[in-house]
């Protein structure tokens, strides 16, 4: 024994060597694991993944729930009938009488144009005089 310092004692130690026969065993096991697992395509992995299956079932259930909540869609003839009714409602407005009221209560377009022409003539006459 040459020293009482544990660090000196440790310096006398050599690094442990891995047993030579271990390399073959470990590498063959590792390569076997790699070749044992077939690399699947992305599409295959997606379709066989549990997450995607759950998402698929959830989407279907969601659509069913929405359909139940909203009720059955209206038949095409009902939709068409609804449009006709809307058109009739618009036609039922008394547009003619409203137009008459407008005509009787205010100047017509021709009257407005005439008044504007008079204004222009008056202003031109006044300009010539000055």
């Amino acid at each position, binding site marked *: *024994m*040459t020293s009482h310092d544990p*660090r000196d*004692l440790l310096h006398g130690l050599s690094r*442990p060597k*891995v047993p030579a026969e271990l*390399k073959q065993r470990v590498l063959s096991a*590792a*390569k076997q694991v790699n070749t044992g697992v077939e690399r699947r395509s992305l599409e295959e992995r997606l379709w066989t993944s549990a997450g995607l299956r759950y998402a698929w079932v959830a989407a279907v259930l969601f659509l069913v729930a929405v359909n139940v909540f909203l009720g059955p869609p209206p038949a095409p003839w009902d939709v068409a009938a609804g449009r006709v009714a809307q058109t009739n409602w618009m036609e039922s407005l008394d547009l003619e009488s409203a137009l008459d009221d407008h005509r009787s209560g205010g100047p017509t377009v021709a009257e407005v144009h005439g008044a504007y022409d008079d204004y222009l003539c008056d202003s031109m006459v006044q300009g010539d005089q000055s």
Partner: protein
Amino acid sequence: MEMAPRAEKRGRVRVADELSKLVADLADGCMEALNPIWDLCADDLFGLALYRTGNVGDAEDAVQDVFVRLASKPKALARADNPRNYLRRMAHNAAVDVVKRRRPADPIDVAFALGDQDPSTETGADAKRAVVLLAHLPASQRVTVFLRHFEDLSFREIGAVTGVPTFTAASRYRLALRRLRTMMGAER
């Protein structure tokens, strides 16, 4: 702790560069890269596992676990900042798992890590004595001594490998030396 010679440090940088290339090849699906990775790292990983488990058979199992995981998930190593330390961490975790699986009654090899040293020489006798003393240390302190003494890692790196804070790694090393010193004093 003596500083490693400059040539040794250059050698480590070269090994790290080489390992990075091999890891990239492995991530690309080239399983043949496992061979040179083994040549570069197997001694480190085996030594670490041996110091953690105290048992040659368990250390072999731990190293095998590391390489099987590498083969099954080759891209995980490519994402690591420091592949060598990542491998060390894998080996440490595998060794801890192996020890957990082991039955408590299993004996621990006292003569582990002696290597090819001849116990009849003075150096060999010291080495054997060191091994016997190291076997009495707790596994966490023993692996800290290994990483500091053989791998010349900083305490920050030792903490990263063993999954503890830097302070804890330094504390384990200090306690290990103190315990070794105490045992050496008791021997006299």
